[in-house]
């Protein structure tokens, strides 16, 4: 029974991901006083892309076609780590957060290679910038998670979530706030949102992710876009379940699960509103201010770890 819920949970993260993108676009449109497209538009786009043919540069190699597959598969695998409606997940108790972070790295590695294989300047530009951002983002991401792991004395995500669920809601320590701050900052960088990357631009001075995928089209592009949507929802769901798991189903009855899903939607909705406010209100950082931004995240997460070890003592 639990396995079925885990599978459905992962399927929800995967299939619901385009919807999250649509909602963000709609919210941003409202904030900017535009009418905006339907929240279902990302699905229509995805179907359109998946039905088309793949355009491949004649100078590219097999890696160009392999990269979207590797990215998509690694992202799917990563989403199987994230608990949503109840504390366990398909791989949540078997693997730990190091595995999750390195699966993201696997996808990113191949996407960067695919970008370089296009043979244009844009791919290299995107890959080079992505290399900078991601190599600096890994440390704060892991340190923030380490702080939580030390608090919970567990390294598997399900274990950490179970521990947090058992705590009193008003018993949030400073460590949680610090860790949340750093992880939220890193999530913005990892998923290519403002102020680190602008997902809606095609200007060569600013683009990172868009630069990498410029040569892709058809189903390959569809897979990449879908994967980045999954990554966004999975990271947000991870934030929700690590820092505010309250409301998750403690048993496998249908009612509890539906209630947990509702709770999740509300919590995710709050995050999405926050995200669209940030994206509408904040300007994109200059490329060389991004290391400072990530440096702040690293410092905050290091503080979180230091405080945790002090708390535990």
């Amino acid at each position, binding site marked *: 029974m639990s396995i079925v819920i885990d599978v459905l949970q992962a399927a929800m993260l995967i299939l619901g991901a385009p919807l999250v993108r649509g909602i963000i676009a709609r919210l941003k449109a409202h904030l900017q006083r535009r009418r905006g497209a339907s929240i279902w538009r990302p699905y229509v786009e995805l179907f359109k892309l998946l039905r088309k043919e793949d355009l491949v540069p004649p100078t590219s190699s097999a890696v160009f076609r392999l990269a979207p597959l590797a990215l998509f598969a690694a992202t799917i695998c990563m989403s199987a780590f994230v608990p949503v409606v109840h504390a366990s997940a398909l791989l949540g108790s078997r693997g730990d957060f190091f*595995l999750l972070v*390195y699966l993201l790295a696997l996808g990113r590695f191949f996407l960067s290679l695919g970008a370089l294989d296009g043979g244009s300047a844009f791919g290299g530009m995107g890959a080079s910038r992505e290399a900078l951002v991601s190599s600096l*983002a890994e440390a704060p991401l892991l340190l923030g998670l380490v702080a939580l792991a*030390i608090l919970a004395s567990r390294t598997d995500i399900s274990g950490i979530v179970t521990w947090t669920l058992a705590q009193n809601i008003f018993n949030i320590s400073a460590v949680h706030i610090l860790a949340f701050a750093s992880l939220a900052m890193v999530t913005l960088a990892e998923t290519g949102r403002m102020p680190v990357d602008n997902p809606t631009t095609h200007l060569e001075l600013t683009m990172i992710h868009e630069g990498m995928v410029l040569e892709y089209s058809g189903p390959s592009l569809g897979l990449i876009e879908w994967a980045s949507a999954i990554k966004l929802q999975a990271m947000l769901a991870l934030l929700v379940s690590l820092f505010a798991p309250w409301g998750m189903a403690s048993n496998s009855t249908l009612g509890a699960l539906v209630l947990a899903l509702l709770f999740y939607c509300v919590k995710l909705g709050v995050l999405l509103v926050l995200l669209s406010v940030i994206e509408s209100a904040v300007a994109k950082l200059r490329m060389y201010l991004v290391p400072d931004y990530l440096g702040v995240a690293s410092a905050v997460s290091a503080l979180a770890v230091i405080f945790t070890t002090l708390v535990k003592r």
Partner: protein
Amino acid sequence: MQLGAIETGFVFLLAVLGLIAPLVLIASLAERARGFAIALILSASIAGCLVAVFSFLKEPALLLELRWVTPFSFSLTVDRLSAFFLLLVCSVAIPVTVFGVPYFNFHYSEARRNWTWAFFSLFLLSMIVVVTASTGFAFLMGWELMTLTSTALIVVEGDSEDRRHNVLIYLLMMHAGAAAVATAFFLFLPHSDSLDFSALRLAGATIPGGLRAAIFVTAFLGFGAKAGLIPLHLWLPRAHPIAPSPVSAMMSGIMLKTAVYGFVRFAFDFLAGGPWWSGYAVLVVAAATGLLGILYGISEHDLKRLLAYSSVENMGIIFLGLGTSLVFVANHAPLGAALALTAALLHAFNHALFKSLLFLGTGALSHSAHSVNLNELGGLQERMPLTGTAVLVGCCSIAGLPLFNGFISEWLTFRSFLAGSTLLNSKADVVLPLMVGVLALIGGLAAACFVKAYGVAFLGRPRSARAEEATEAPFGMRLGLLLLAAGCVFIGIFPGILLRPLVALVQGLVPGAGVPNETLSIARVIPWIALLIVGVSSSVALLRHKKRMARTWACGLPGLSSRMEYTSTVFSKPIRFVFARVYRPDRKIEQQPSDHPYFPASISYRSVRTTSYERALYRPVVDSIVSQALRLRRLQTGNIQVYLLYIFLALVSLLALLRFQ
């Protein structure tokens, strides 16, 4: 002496590598004789692997007493630690030898080829002696032979002024390191009646604190110089790139691991953990080594230098594990110590596989595309698909990506940092969890570095005519690469096969340790993740059946040229910019003519990374040695009577000393 099957194999291995193969090669230049010698080297390596596996299972350890052959106490033993490193040496030597056959054939004349193979065989022997020695004398013999034979192999490639300078630095630092290792041995002497390892082990338990610290520090310095720990790494990026590729593979892949072996022998086997601060000292040095190593590596565009610096980084990761283990030993937490030591040893094995794979890949590049400068390569995946795929596997492994072997050991290292604070629930330590951040930064930068290395060399368009005309490497080279790549993937997906014996080995070194849970859990979960990833990607691949060629968008221009691609230099520019303080580049811009700022005829731009170590650390030492030597030169008059006087005075003073003692 009764010889069992394992002993026979071991003696065969030593005899072939030390005597038969070199003699055959020196005696005859015939093609058939060389083929025979190479076949012997190969079979000796295979025998070495078998000896390692079987003696691992055997109790008590295999002991080969050679006191009756040499005037000194010289004996070899294959206990579990030695067996592990013997396996490492021999299993990497097989693909390197297979690769070397076509490589040396194409690049060297007949006579040089024979010398190269002879030294190759002796080099292999020296490393086997080092990891199996059971007396201080045998160890130091092997250690010295290792330096000399590897130098000979570097010099075979050529001896220009520049190379001689680099070789000199290599020899100097290796001998300084050897002196430190020898000192570490001799420091045992007041408490031990011989330099037999068993005697040292006994003495290690009773040695007083101060001497213990002195032994630890000298051993760390000596083995650190061999391992290329910063700031003793100076020789590594000089010596590795100038050797022929198979030799670089041996030096980076195997020779550096002998330093790990020596350090583990001293710190864990003899001393059973150093002084309480030893772990932290090792951690600090290792963290600096890892970070600076990869930062220097990412700024290189010569593939061999990049790989050499990445070896520095990986030695940093291995010593992070060793340092963590020492911290746990000092805190009496054997389980954590076992986990960290397992991680370090596994990373040593993994690094041996993927680093020799990458160096051999570089050899294939220099064979087919006649360059190892990244900015002259490109588009080679299409032209050399098998080499390219193997190198891709190596890059994924070294970047620590899941499903490849580098990930397993990095993951274990990560978990060992947390072992104290999350699992054992003992006193939480602040330093170890913060090391997660350091290793994460190292890992992130390594991934960036190898995206660059593989992406620029093998993807996109060729950047030079030589790369354009490159063809696939010959069969032997491909076979060598393929063997190593298969090893990387296999260990990456089924790590249990190595982890189980490793844990058994580590339990012998860390008394009282159980089986760390992590080693079991990673071996269980990784095959499922591999299945999931392969299943998803192959089923999604069916979605994309239609495919059409279309030129890359060129912003409206008639077409793209390779000059519009990102080069290796510009790819790493953002990272170099952010870490400018580490590099401290020395920039020079010259304009000709200088009085026409707006219409210059030519502009030359030079940017060199300043080697601040040389300036701040080595220069003062060298200067003081030179000034002392100049002062001593006054003794050298060139007059024979004066020298006779010196001898007479020395004799008299020695006699006087003996008389009054």
